[in-house]
Structures are given as C-alpha cells and as structure tokens.
C-alpha cells in the first residue's frame, strides 16, 4: 500500500508522472536560465499528456503532446528569444522573498482548501479498467463533437480566427 493505494502498475506510473510534472513545474518556476525553463516546461506538458493516457484519454493525450509540448512550447521559446538579446543570460530579476512568501501562503491556503474538499468528497469507487469506454475514444469524441458539441466546435473556429486575426493585427509592424 502506498498512500492507501494498492501498489499496481498504474499507481507506480501515476506517481512517476506526478513526480515528473511537479518537479518540472517547480524547476520551471525556480530556474532562471531560459533554455532550462523550456526543457522543464516540456516536462510538465509531457507529464500531463502521460496522465491523460493513463486515464484512457489517449487522443487527448496525443493532442496535448502536439499542441502543448510541441506547438506552444516552440512558440514560447521563440517569443523568449525574440524578446531577449541572448538565450543564456538570466531572464529577469526575480521576485522578493516577502512577496514570494505571501503569494505562496495565499496559494497554499487555496490549494489546501481544495485538497481538503477533494479528500472529504465521496467519490465514486475505483474503476479498475484502464479503458472504461467500450469504443475507441476517437470515435466517441468525434461523435460528441459532431453531435452534441457542434455549436461549441463551430465557435472554437471563431475563437481561433479571432486569435489569428487579432495576433496579426496587433503584432504586425506599424505601416
């Protein structure tokens, strides 16, 4: 038993992934070298993708890897490079201890409350199956998107268009 959980392959996998995510996240927040940050960022996103896959959401996991670990990370790194003279140098002055502690305390309270609530809730029992769905998640997702979620799906296109046009309008050089 580990934290009250039976030690199975899944459990081990989960804790490994959790470790990766949290450590990467902490690294990302504490490192000052931009390249190191980027690497740990990828760690976080990949870890999350792993969690998704562990939860049977293979498609979502894949999208996570492609969008986050791929596209967004690259976008970030490019932006970092664009807004910085060199890659190796220290990114910026860091936050003061006082501010850091206060922020940490506030967030700690917040997270503690959420954790407390999570712990006290009566969640449904364990699902043993790795894959609870009887069909391929892709099919299910496709069905859902094109039947139940048609409207949001169409809207997302609007969101993306807005983002695209907006980014262009704002980021283009003054004519």
């Amino acid at each position, binding site marked *: 038993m580990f934290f009250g*959980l039976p030690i199975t392959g899944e459990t081990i996998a*989960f804790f490994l992934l*959790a470790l990766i*995510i*949290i450590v990467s*996240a902490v690294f*990302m*927040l504490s490192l000052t070298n931009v390249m190191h*940050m980027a690497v740990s960022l990828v760690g*976080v996103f990949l870890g*999350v993708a792993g*969690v998704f896959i562990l*939860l*049977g*959401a293979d498609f*979502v996991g894949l*999208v*996570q890897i492609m*969008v*986050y670990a791929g596209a967004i990370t690259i*976008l*970030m790194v490019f*932006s*970092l490079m*664009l*807004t910085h003279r060199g890659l190796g140098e220290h*990114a*910026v002055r860091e*936050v003061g201890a006082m*501010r*850091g502690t206060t*922020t940490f305390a506030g*967030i700690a309270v*917040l*997270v503690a409350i*959420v954790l407390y609530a*999570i712990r006290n809730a009566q*969640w*449904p029992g*364990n*699902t043993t199956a790795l894959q*609870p*769905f009887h069909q391929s*998640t892709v099919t*299910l*997702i496709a069905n*859902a998107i094109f039947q*139940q*979620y048609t409207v*949001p*799906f169409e809207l997302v296109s609007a*969101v*993306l268009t*807005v*983002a695209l046009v*907006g*980014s*262009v309008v*704002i*980021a283009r050089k003054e004519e």
Partner: protein
Amino acid sequence: MALQPFLALAAILFGLGLYGALTKRNLIIVLISIEMMLNAANINLVAFAHFLPKPNIEGQVYALFNIAIAAAEVAVGLAILLSFFRTRDTSDVRDMNSMKW
C-alpha cells in the same frame, strides 16, 4: 487506482501555475504558468471522465476544447506581448506600470 490522487495532482499543478503567474517576472513565463493552470483543469476533466460512475466522454471533449482555446489565448498573449515589447523594449511584468493610480 482512485480519483483523488489525480485531483490532488491537478490542485497542486493549479497552485504551482498560479504561483508562477503571480511571481515570475518574465511575461512569457507568466503566460506559461497560466497554461499550467489550464492543464490542471484539464487533468480534472479527464480524470472525472474516467472515474465517473457512468464514464462519459464529455470530459475529454471539454479538455480538447480547452486545449484549443488555450492555444488561441497563448497566441494572442504573445502577440500583445510583442506589441508591448516593441514600444517598451521589455518583457518584465513589473514594467507594466505606466498606468496606475
């Protein structure tokens, strides 16, 4: 495997993201931290989708939508950042202080 560990993980990630958003000085890192918060929410959704008494796919779909929107958000954020950088030559959060009081 149970639900709580996933939720706990998400909560912690949410907290970390929030912490990053509120303490990091580089605007890009701030934006990334916000993405981490969104990721936390996605973990929640996917975990719920998995562990619900009647597992349903809606959580996963929701997560997918979120990923798409988050990407759009990041793109816009970076665009505005570039515009800001162009006029101010800085990407420090603390330099966003021309408007106060």
